[in-house]
Each structure stands twice: as C-alpha cells, then as structure tokens.
C-alpha cells in the first residue's frame, strides 16, 4: 500500500502485531511444541508424564509387541485402523457435502441479488447455532424412538426403527450436517464471481455444454470447491462431538481416541500427545498440498 496513511503506521508494523504474536505464540505455538515433547516422554499412571525420553507412545501406535512387550514387533492395526476410518468418514462426509453443497451454492449464486442474500442468510443461520446443540438435535431426531422413526412407522413406510443411531452412517450424517455451510459459502463466493457472459461467448463460439463446464466454468469455480472440501474435511477428521454422540464403540474416531487418553485414570498422556502429533501432521500435509495448488493456480 503506497503513501497515505501508511506514513502513520510505517515502522510500527511489528509493534502492532506484537500482542497477537505474543498471545498465539505463547498459548498455542509453545503448547503445541510442548505436546510434541510430551509425545516422547514416559507415561505416568493416573495421567501425566515422567520426564524420561521414550518412544513407547509411537511404538504403541504402530507396533504390536505382544502382551509383555517381548515379542518381535508386528504392525498394530488398531490405531492405524481408527485413523483410516476417520479419514474415510471425513472423506465421505466431504463428498456428501460437495454433492449437496455445490448445487445449492450454484442455485443461490444465480438468483437475483435481492433473493440471493435471503437464501444465503438461510444457509448461514445454522452455522451460527451451537455445534453441540445441532448434534444433540440430530441425535434426538434420528434415535430409534425419535420423531423420524415414529413418523415413518406411523405412516406405514417402515415397520421397525431404521436403527440409524450408533452407525457409521449416523456419524457421516452428523459430520455432513455440522459442516455443510462450510462447503456452500466458498463455492458460492466463486460462482458469484463468475461472469455468465463468458459461457454465452463460449456457446456463441460453438462450445458444447460439456466443454463450457470443463474449460470455462470449472477453472473459475475450482478454487471454491477445493476450499470448501478443505474446510469440511479438516474439521471432520478431528471431530469429537458427532462420533461421540451419534456413533458408538464401532465408530470410534481420532477425536475420541485422543480425548480418552486425557480423561480419567486409564489415560496415557504421551500416547494421546503422539496421536495428536500424527493427526496434526496429516492436517498440515493436506493444507500444504492445498497451499501449493493455490500458488500454482495464481502463477498460471
């Protein structure tokens, strides 16, 4: 930014940023680094750690050494399985959000400006409603004796409850429901920016519908789609409320695995810290790939 007010603030950038750096640095960055250290310490029973270097947490995560720890290590599938299931669940929820969210965003972005803001307002309200309340409401609705089953049974469509609660599907539904607005908003922003005169021009130049979609619209809308997918996938991966309230033991996800390590006497802090580090690494990789793709898009 040139001249103007920058002469008031020039040279004071660091001073103005300092409070935010101090707060986030000391109460988030430092704690995350400390957690990384904790993942290499020895666990103390009843929670907490002993300050003694150990790889036991990561070892427990990846390898099975038998009950007494003296057998040759085999790959341990329990925890890798939980991570894999979480990735799978978050992925399915993201796809569901995209399938419903894209047409919705497209529809809203192509209304006239007045009704557009009303539709958008309707989609954003649930985002402002407490996530716990929304998840509890979903649980109430789909429970075996809940209104959905009551209604379907009373109208004779089904004869016994659907048994939705405590299934993988319920968790996906919960994640989908929690993060759907995150998919709609960035795609909406991208489509709104799109100038429909471009597709008319393409049609005048004998481009077919498919060609227009692929070569004219997709490049404009793609950043919105990718941003939406990231915004749904990342929080879904570490979600706690949806799997905990809507799922059962069979739908255990990363969030619950980590939470369990810090609650009660059965906890294992280094193991919980190690699982958190692995989750953090996965998320940072996803974000890095995203940042790379955005930069490439800009360079072109």
């Amino acid at each position, binding site marked *: 930014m040139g001249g103007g*007010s920058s002469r008031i603030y020039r040279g*004071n950038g660091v001073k103005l940023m300092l409070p935010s750096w101090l707060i*986030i640095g000391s109460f*988030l960055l430092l704690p995350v680094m400390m957690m990384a250290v904790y993942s290499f310490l020895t666990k103390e029973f009843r929670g907490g750690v002993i300050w003694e270097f150990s790889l036991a947490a990561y070892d427990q995560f990846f390898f099975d050494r038998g009950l007494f720890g003296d057998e040759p290590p085999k790959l341990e599938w329990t925890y890798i399985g939980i991570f894999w299931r979480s990735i799978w669940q978050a992925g399915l929820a993201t796809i569901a959000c995209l399938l419903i969210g894209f047409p919705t965003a497209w529809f809203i972005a192509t209304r006239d400006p007045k009704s557009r803001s009303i539709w958008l307002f309707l989609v954003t309200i*649930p985002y402002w409603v407490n996530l716990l309340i929304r998840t509890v409401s979903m649980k*109430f609705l789909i429970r075996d004796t809940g209104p959905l089953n009551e209604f379907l049974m009373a109208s004779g469509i089904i004869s016994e409850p659907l048994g939705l609660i405590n299934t993988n599907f319920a968790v996906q539904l919960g994640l989908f*429901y929690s993060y759907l607005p995150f998919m709609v908003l960035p795609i909406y922003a991208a489509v709104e920016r799109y100038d*429909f005169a471009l597709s008319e021009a393409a049609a005048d130049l004998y481009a077919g519908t498919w060609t227009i979609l692929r070569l004219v619209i997709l490049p404009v809308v793609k950043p919105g789609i990718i941003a939406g997918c990231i915004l749904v996938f990342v929080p879904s991966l570490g979600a706690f409320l949806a799997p905990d309230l809507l799922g059962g033991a069979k739908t255990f996800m990363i969030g619950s695995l980590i939470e369990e390590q810090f609650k009660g006497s059965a906890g294992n802090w280094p193991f919980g810290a190690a699982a958190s580090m692995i989750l953090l690494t996965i998320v940072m990789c996803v974000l890095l790939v995203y940042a790379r793709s955005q930069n490439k898009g800009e360079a072109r």
Partner: protein
Amino acid sequence: MAAKLDLRRFPGFLAITILCLVVLYAPLAVVAVYSFNASTSITNWGGTSLTWYVDVFTGPEAPKFQKAALNSFVIAVCAASIATIIATAAAVAMTRAGRFRGKTLGFALINLPLMVPEVVTAVASLVFFSAIGFTTGLMTILVAHTVFCIPFAYLPIAARMQSIPDQYEQAAMDLYATPSEAFRLVLLPLMTPGVLSGFLLAFIISLDDFLITNFVKGAGIETLPTAIFGSVKQGIKPNIMAISTLMLGVSVVFVSLSWLIGRMGQDKKQAS
C-alpha cells in the same frame, strides 16, 4: 448454433437447495417443537406447554445451568473483547504498515488457530497449562478462548480495512490531524462495522466451543456447552430441549444483528 442451455437454471438445483435447507433445519425445528411438549417423556406428545421453559429457570437443575450460562457469557464477552482489540491492531499492521519484518510468517501465526485441529489445540493447552502449573479454571478457559477468537475477529476487520482507501487519513493528516486523531476520528469510525462483526463472530465462536473448554476447565467449573454435554450423556431430557431452543433464539438474534451491521456498513460505503 449450439442448443441454448441456460446454465443459470439447472433443473433440479432448486430441489437440492430445498433438500439442503430441510436437512439443516429439520433437527433444530423438531427440537424446538418438542421443547413445548407438556409430557415428561421426550417421545410422546402431551400437549403444548411452557413447563420446560419454567423448569429451565426454576427447576432442580436451574442453578447449575444458570451458573454455566453466566460463565459462558462472561468468558465470551472477555475473550471476544480482548481478541477484537488484538485483532484490530494486527489488521492495522497488515493493511496499513507497509512491509515489515516477519509479516508473512506473522500472518501465518495469526491464522494458526484455524489450521490446528481443535482436539490438538485442546490437548496442547491442557499439557501446557498443567506443565506450568496454571491452575485450571475460568482463567485457563479465558486464555484458550482468546487464542482461537483472534483469527475469527481478524477476518472481518481486515476485510473491512482493505476496502477503506487510505486517502481519508492522508487528507486528515494534511489538515494537521495528529496520527492518533487520524485513527480515532477517521479510520476507527470507518472500520466500526468490521470491528463489530469481528466481535460478534468471536463472541459466537467462544460461546460455541465445547472441546477445548472441556479439556482446560477445572473440576466443578462448567460452561453452558460442557454442562449440556454432561447432561446429554445421561440421556436427552426435555429441559435440554428448552435450553437448546433458547440458545437457538440467541444465535438467530446475533446473526440478524451482524447481518444488519454488515448492511449498515454497505450503505455507508455507498453513501460516501
């Protein structure tokens, strides 16, 4: 000429949009309706009544929930206020101070709370607070909330500041305004809508948080979400539905407020 297909009107997109809204609203609507149920059973309909709303304020669990609500409110107001002040300073630096050392990295640091998964933030905060012997309680919740409120307050403020040309302040300075006057009398009034929506967003985000609070709160201290979670673990009771509906109402009031403030900002921009 290729067949004229109006890309603006895909058939079926209206239906999907309505489906989307039904999915988003059905659970909330059902809970709101059942909160007026007179019956103690959450399944059977026993007629319309306000029993459970009375119960929320006077029932056996009322003191617990009132205390939790007060905690939530105080923490949200404090965390959002601190975060808004810090975020405003950061937004001024990012949009007005030109280049300075650590700008790119500093921007990443501000957004760090958005990138780290919530459960990881929760674990890290717990580990950190327990390591430095910071007794868990209201203060730890406040500190943790302030951290993740900063980026949410920052986004609308920075967006607003980017749309204010800096000629206004330059003109003020040319007319012998001191830097502090230029900020107080020119920039601040112009950025107020951004600051207000930043505060509201941070406030709602703080009120919304369950996971991080649940990790850093001490024994016996509850916020509204942790109290509701504890109660729901033993089954959904009708008073929870009344509380949920009340919170839903509060959220709707807040969205409408921030929407109106956003509109106000736009009108001003058009007027100027």
